[in-house]
């Protein structure tokens, strides 16, 4: 019912727009009669022409805009009329014509208006009036480099906003604002922020599908006094995105495009054949020192046994013995990654048109992205369309809307290692794991399918990119439509009163098709397999707002009342089968098999998930003498996913601001432009848990009896599924965070130095947590409101202009944020939850386990013996765990907290140098003081190994333990060496651009108003990294490096 109404509204809205277009055209063409012609030139204080300024005959709809030289001409101006000249950022002037035919005007900047306008929840505010902690990243900053999504553009730009990198095209990194408060990670409420696009909270995915070129600005609300306006969804911060809309002024046509060329760079390449052979010999020796010779004393007989199983490979190893004694350089070294890599080429094109008159403004853009990956078989193509229009229908009614649509097709490439969940997930890793002493083809030229023989369970990747198809399509359409009534323009006494209704539908369709040919290594001799799955999400939000803004003398009051409802609906379906009769069917003719025949393993499934949220909100903004500011808000939210009786809750906030520079006693401090103190407190909520959790969901499966399959019901049956049903919690309620924020905004020396400092502290209670319960209940866990966390931090942003001459300018912006989160209470009060590695008084995400104290050495024999008496099997060269309690037993009591997973400190530093038309941008980003687990080096002697410094009797100071030949096992403590302290500073962007001279461009006569070309380095490298074999930013040992050339032109 609801949805029907919405679609109706949508179509009507489009109808309106079309009608208005025609009406406007009609008006424009019919108005023409009366008297004189007025011409003139509009310039700014510096004498520069003002382009696109509006010139209107007062009280009529007759008007025009200034051209490229600031000139204008208006026909038929009555002698006694006045003309009104206006332009954004300048004071509007009204001038009597008085018979003159030439009126030249110098527009003055309006300081008041120039004050940046920022987006806050449910409205905009002048930045100087803002009382909360927020950061704005504008179009200019967003466009310093070409990015494939808005996240990348934001990285390092905003203090307290930590964003990680994902390299696979079409995927995005993780974002965390002001650290962690909720448990997240599948055991608690989500830590993701709320995204709001043009006033519409997103519910069917994030912002990765938006074309970053369509984004005007991103405002990030960080403290609770500003996020509480979003109540139950504001706990992890709010990211407000404003897309480009049309604006009054000259119509602008823009094109931007870029080409990027990339190659894979591997920070920890695999051991070459010769090194590997030596390393494997050591592994054998270490496994049975009494049977084999040490790795540096090889024998041919041993090698025949060590490298048996693949005759071609063994013959290759034997080449090393061809001279009688061992010479590893004679062995052919196969770098398998060469077969699967290619130069990645990305091209991106965007065309947009933007313009508008007084009553109608519009923006249309089209974007295209094609990305050929650096690994064979990976490919991504995306189309973006964005259209928006705003119409002032009458002086009291305005309506508008925008649609953002994107369609992407991703060839995911190799993704499914056969029969294991631990194998390589992409072709490059799969290739890297193949033994380098092996060869791809035998002497007859045929592919060797298991290089090295069946010892290692690795398969050749030759031609694999043609045998495995994984295609993912994604369509997303995001709308935002509004209508508003200005009552003051209907009836004067109601001046300042507005009604606004906003509707935001969000639609997403995802389809994945997967086909693995029977010849694919991932099927290992089985039948081919096909699967197809779909997910359709539809979500909408409807907001009704009553707004009132009014000044009474020195008092200014703003009031916002909101009623809001939103709903999401997700449907999914999937089907799969094996043994597709004709492989070219792929997943497109799945009914062609006999689905009742079990040999085809046909299966299908569908699902539905719905949730709803209903809200009321009231907010008041009050300022006295433009220097004492107050914001207070109250929001009530009801959520469907919570238990009956606990669905509703209340989220208040309050903030105060003091603009000190406005005070009389500060007026004569000339170097001070701005000094504002802010204080805010607010309560936000989090109910980001799955639907139906309170309803007693059980499971149904099938049980095979020889008489047929029977449907069965069980509460939990891990045999059938890894996801268990949680015990229904009939009292589940909101997780609530209270946050205090103190901030200061300052600007000195006419803007040469400016910045913001914020300090915050927050307490979260009724933590949503998947609490372990005794399995006697039939359930392993129950989602509960238990526990408390707290969190504090400081954020500093500094903007300085160290050099500013006529030609040369250096703009520098530095931000850093420090934060620390801490667990206060858990499900059993002040009791650690060791199973989930949660500890009272520690950070929420930590590594917990044994500490490593390097490696055991021969000289430690006596010490090792004491452990070995207690059942350990330490030998020289194996990992030495720390026996914390000194009982000569490594057991659970020796575990300690090793480090925290989230960085304590994040920082970004952007620099822009411009000299005449040349621009140089340098952006650095860093994350500091956290820990990662690289997993250590298993060193089982049988699988391919990356180049490492391993322990040998003649290399006892090695980084890693000695290899031991083993199927599964090896050194049980090998993983401990993988915990690494992480900190890095990365060159996020280095680009050089040239802006063509505008005068030169205008002489071209093709209407070009600006043009820029640039070249940019991508992933140039780290200035500092605490781990050398890994890119700490992408979290992988290999990454793409390349460069981009691009062009931006405006007409």
């Amino acid at each position, binding site marked *: 019912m609801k949805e029907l109404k919405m679609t109706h509204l949508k179509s009507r809205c489009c109808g309106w727009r079309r009608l208005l277009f025609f009406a406007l055209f009609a008006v424009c063409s019919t108005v023409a009669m009366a008297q004189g012609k007025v011409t003139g030139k509009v310039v700014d204080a510096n004498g520069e022409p003002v382009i696109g300024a509006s010139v209107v005959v007062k009280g009529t709809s007759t008007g025009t805009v200034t051209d490229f030289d600031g000139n204008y001409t208006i026909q038929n101006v009555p002698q006694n009329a006045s003309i009104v000249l206006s332009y954004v950022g300048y004071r509007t002037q009204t001038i009597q014509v008085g018979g003159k035919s030439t009126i030249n005007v110098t527009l003055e900047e309006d300081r008041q208006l120039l004050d940046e306008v920022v987006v806050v929840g449910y409205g905009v505010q002048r930045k100087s009036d803002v009382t909360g902690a927020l950061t704005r990243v504008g179009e200019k900053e967003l466009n310093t480099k070409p990015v494939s999504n808005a996240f990348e553009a934001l990285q390092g730009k905003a203090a307290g906003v930590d964003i990680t990198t994902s390299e696979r095209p079409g995927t995005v990194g993780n974002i965390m604002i002001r650290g962690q408060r909720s448990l997240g990670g599948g055991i608690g409420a989500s830590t993701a922020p709320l995204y709001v696009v043009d006033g519409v909270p997103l519910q069917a995915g994030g912002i990765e599908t938006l074309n970053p070129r369509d984004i005007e600005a991103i405002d990030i609300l960080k403290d609770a006094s500003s996020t509480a306006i979003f109540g139950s969804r504001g706990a992890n911060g709010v990211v407000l995105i404003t897309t480009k809309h049309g604006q009054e002024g000259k119509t602008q046509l823009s094109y931007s495009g870029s080409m990027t060329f990339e190659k894979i760079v591997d920070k920890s390449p695999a051991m070459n054949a010769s090194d590997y052979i030596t390393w494997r010999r050591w592994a054998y020796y270490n*496994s049975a020192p009494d049977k084999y010779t040490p790795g540096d004393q090889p024998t041919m007989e041993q090698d*025949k046994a060590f490298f*048996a*199983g693949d*005759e071609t490979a063994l013959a290759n190893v034997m080449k090393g013995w061809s001279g009688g004694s061992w010479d590893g350089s004679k062995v052919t070294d196969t770098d398998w990654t060469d077969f699967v890599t290619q130069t990645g080429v990305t091209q991106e094109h965007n065309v947009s048109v933007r313009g508008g008159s007084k009553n109608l403004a519009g923006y249309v853009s089209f974007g295209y992205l094609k990305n050929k990956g650096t690994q064979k078989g990976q490919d991504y193509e995306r189309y973006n369309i964005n259209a928006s229009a705003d119409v002032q229908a009458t002086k009291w009614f305005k309506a508008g809307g925008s649609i953002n649509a994107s369609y992407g097709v991703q060839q995911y490439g190799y993704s499914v290692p056969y029969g294991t969940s631990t194998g390589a997930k992409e072709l490059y890793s799969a290739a890297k794991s193949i033994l380098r002493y092996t060869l791809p083809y035998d002497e007859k030229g*045929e592919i060797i*399918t298991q290089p090295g023989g069946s010892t290692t369970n690795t*398969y050749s990747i030759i031609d694999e990119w043609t045998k495995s198809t994984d295609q993912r399509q994604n369509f997303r359409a995001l709308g935002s439509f509004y209508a508003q009534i200005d009552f003051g323009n209907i009836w004067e006494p109601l001046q300042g009163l507005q009604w606004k*209704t906003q509707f935001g539908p969000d639609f997403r369709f995802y389809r994945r098709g997967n086909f693995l040919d029977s010849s694919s290594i991932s099927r290992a*001799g*089985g*039948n081919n397999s096909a699967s197809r799955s779909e997910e359709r999400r539809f979500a909408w939000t*409807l907001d*009704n707002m009553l707004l009132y803004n009014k000044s009474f003398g020195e008092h200014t009051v703003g009031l916002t009342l909101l*009623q809001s409802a939103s709903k999401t609906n997700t449907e999914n379906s999937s089907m*799969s089968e094996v043994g597709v009769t004709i492989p070219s069917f792929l997943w497109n003719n799945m009914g062609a098999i006999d689905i009742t025949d*079990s*040999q085809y393993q046909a299966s299908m499934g569908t699902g539905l998930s719905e949730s*709803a949220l209903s809200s*009321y909100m009231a907010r008041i903004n009050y300022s006295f003498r433009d220097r004492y500011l107050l914001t207070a808000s109250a929001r009530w939210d*009801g*959520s*469907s996913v919570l238990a009956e009786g606990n*669905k509703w809750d209340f989220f208040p906030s309050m903030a105060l601001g003091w603009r000190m520079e406005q005070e009389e006693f500060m007026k004569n401090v000339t170097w001070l432009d701005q000094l504002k103190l802010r204080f805010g407190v607010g309560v936000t909520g989090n109910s980001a848990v799955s639907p*139906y959790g309170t*309803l*007693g969901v059980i*499971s149904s499966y*099938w*049980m*095979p*009896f*020889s008489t047929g*399959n029977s449907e*069965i*019901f069980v*509460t*939990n*049956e*891990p*045999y059938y*599924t890894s996801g268990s049903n949680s*015990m229904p919690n009939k009292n589940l309620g909101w997780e609530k965070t209270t946050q205090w924020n103190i901030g200061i905004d300052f600007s000195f020396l006419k803007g040469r130095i400016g910045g913001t400092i914020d300090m915050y502290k927050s307490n979260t209670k009724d933590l949503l947590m998947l609490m372990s319960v*005794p*399995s*006697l*209940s*039939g*359930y392993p866990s129950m989602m509960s409101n238990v526990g408390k966390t707290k969190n504090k931090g400081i954020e500093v942003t500094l903007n300085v202009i160290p050099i500013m001459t006529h030609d040369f300018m250096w703009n520098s912006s530095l931000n850093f944020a420090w934060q620390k989160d801490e667990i206060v209470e858990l499900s059993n*009060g002040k*009791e650690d939850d*060791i*199973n989930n590695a949660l500890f009272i008084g520690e950070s929420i995400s930590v590594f917990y*386990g044994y500490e490593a104290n390097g490696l055991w050495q021969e000289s430690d024999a006596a010490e090792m013996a004491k452990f070995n008496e*207690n059942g350990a099997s330490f030998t020289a060269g194996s990992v030495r765990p720390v026996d914390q309690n000194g009982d000569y037993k490594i*057991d*659970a009591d020796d575990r300690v907290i090793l480090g925290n997973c989230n960085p304590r400190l994040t920082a970004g530093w952007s620099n822009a140098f411009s000299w005449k038309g040349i621009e140089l941008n340098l952006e650095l980003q860093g994350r500091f003081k956290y820990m990662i687990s690289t997993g250590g080096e298993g060193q089982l002697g049988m699988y391919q190994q990356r180049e490492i410094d391993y322990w040998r009797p003649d290399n006892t100071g090695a980084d890693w333990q000695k290899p031991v030949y083993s*199927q599964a096992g*090896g050194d049980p403590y090998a*993983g401990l060496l993988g915990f690494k302290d992480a900190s890095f500073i990365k060159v996020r962007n280095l680009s050089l651009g040239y802006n063509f001279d505008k005068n030169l461009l205008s002489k071209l006569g093709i209407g070009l108003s600006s043009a820029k070309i640039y070249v940019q380095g991508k992933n140039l490298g780290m200035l500092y990294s605490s781990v050398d074999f890994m890119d700490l930013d992408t979290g992988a040992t290999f990454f793409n490096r390349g460069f981009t050339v691009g062009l931006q032109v405006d007409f």
Partner: protein
Amino acid sequence: MKYINNKIVCGALSMLALLGTTSCGDEFLKEDAGHKVTDALLEDEAGALKMAAGLYGNIRWHFGYEWAYGITLYGCDEFTNGADLTSEPWNTYDNRLNPLDCTPALGAANKNCPAVSALWDEMYYGIATANLVIAKAVNVTNEDARNKALGEAYFLRGYNYYRLFAQYGGVVIQTEPSNGEIKKDYTRASEDETLSQVISDLENAYKMLPKNKWRGNGTWTKYTAAHFLAKALLYRQSERCASWASKYDKSADLNRVISLCDEVITACPLAADYWDLYAKWTGVDCPNEGLSEILMAAEHNEDKSTQGRFGNRTYNYFDPQFSNFSGGWVQRGQYIGGMDFQRCRPTEYTYSVFDNVNDARMWKTFKTVYGLNNAAKADADVIAENGITEDQLPNIGDEGIIFILNKKSDHRFDGEPYGTFGRGGVAHSFVNPLTGKWVPNAFPTFMNGEYVLFNYGVSGNTATSNVFCGINKTADGSRTGEKGDAHRDVIMARTGETYLVKAEAQVRLGDYQGAINTVNVIRARGQWKDGENRSYYTDGSMAFLKAEGGMSDNSTATATSVKKNKDKAGKVLNNTEAYYASMTHKNTYYLSTGIEETTAASDLQIKSYSQLPEEDEAVLSAIGATSDYDRMLNFIFNERTRELLGEWNRWDELARTGLLVKRAKAFNPEAAPNVQDRHMYRPIPQKFIDTLQNPDGTNLSDADKKAWQNPGY
């Protein structure tokens, strides 16, 4: 104009107000779970019966993953670990076997190491479902249907408490559904109370379950309940209960055991031939899965809908790592019924305890030959490297790997007169005297009076050898990929064991000759029959092809594998050809025993309890069993090995009788250094203890927590 404007405004306002009221009512925030299965469905008859059928889903868990062997076969006398150390702590009893789940962070080789909490949780999930069925059975109006459902619920609850009792001792007894109430204060029942709960549930099941397999194969019947009731009563009179069980009348318990066993033996007779049970598995739901001897089995078939997460993974655990050590001569694939994950390596004891000449069960259990299914090396190289002649070259379908299951006293191979033994990668010259062909992988069990089989492993470390002769009880030729899941049922109880339960009860009553007579019945079945070809071999791989007796051809039979199998001409074998090459239908009987070919019947009958077979005497002397009772109890356990090797309950049985430590120390070299008395009980999972609170909501003190734990952990 103004009037109209006002009208529009008022209209819009009232419309929006209306929208507001409808959208924010309770209805809007109400969740509709109509498309979900919720506990509300249990309130009617159909739902309650579906939940009863759900009890059967619970027992499939045992064979889905590594815990299948980790908690039942490791750390005993029959098997030790191969080179794969996934579940090593369960075999070696080292520090990592403690109340915490062993994860890689705690030193596990990988994340598949069975958690100590795994069985605990799973058994309680089943018990919770059983409790619900018992509570909801009132919704079933048909009395017959209700009794069946109740019988099944009592059975599973009794069975699961039995498994908990066997592993942990006394546990928490929960016999009511939780009804959504979260409870965190529990008390641990005594061993006596726990076993009494088992017996009482199984008594109820025995009364209520029908005699016929009305659901088809796998249905729990009165006899399934009788078998486990007999085991539970036998448990009460076993050594682990000695400290408290004296209040129960020993002879009453044991005589009840005997009468229950007799009831089962009569109603559910033994299969005619030992290999009908395992080796002659011909396909999904084949006739042998319906043998009367099978009292309980975890059901599987090949339907995608029933597969679950794991299917039947037991086909992975018993084969040696032939794809690794064979030098490429024997490749793996679905045409060989078992994957070579080499988890369970038989010990010297296991090979020794069989009479290799007369006991057909040995040759119907061990897979001694793998056919050569890939020409791994050029002929000329084979001749040059191994020092053999051209006519000794083997071809596809000849012996690729052989294990000689000889005796310690066998000296025929001393000095390696037929050429040297070894695996594929190592030059060796063994030519099988019976075939005249060089065998790429040939291994004796004993040489020079020494156990040598564990010397041939690739790593060179005898504690982690990947070369051993494995057993075939899980082989499955219906798998459709190299790592495709298996589809055969897993037998959890059968009349063969019932005989041994009865015999043990007789031993405990002092009726030693009666026990011998009982055991002689199953030994009779284990004899070679008159006219039988003793060198013939088969296993469940035969389900691969209809021509081999399978129910149907495997759907991948004509597919070409990933080109791993080639003949000497370089031609790639398809799966059918690879099957024929791998399955020689031959064992090493005559090579292993050295006896003349014969088709006469053999004799395994024991005349008197004072004259036990020499294999048994060797075991008895190794562990120092001298009294009649000790000798006979250990004899029963030797016979259990011969009859029930690898059948998923060895640890429970050894712990029950207190033989665990003694026999593991004597026969499992990897367990021997660490195993001690405390290991007769598993640690109570810390994960469970940590969820507990006192009745007043306060946390347990450290002392309280310690009190929950079994001694020594």
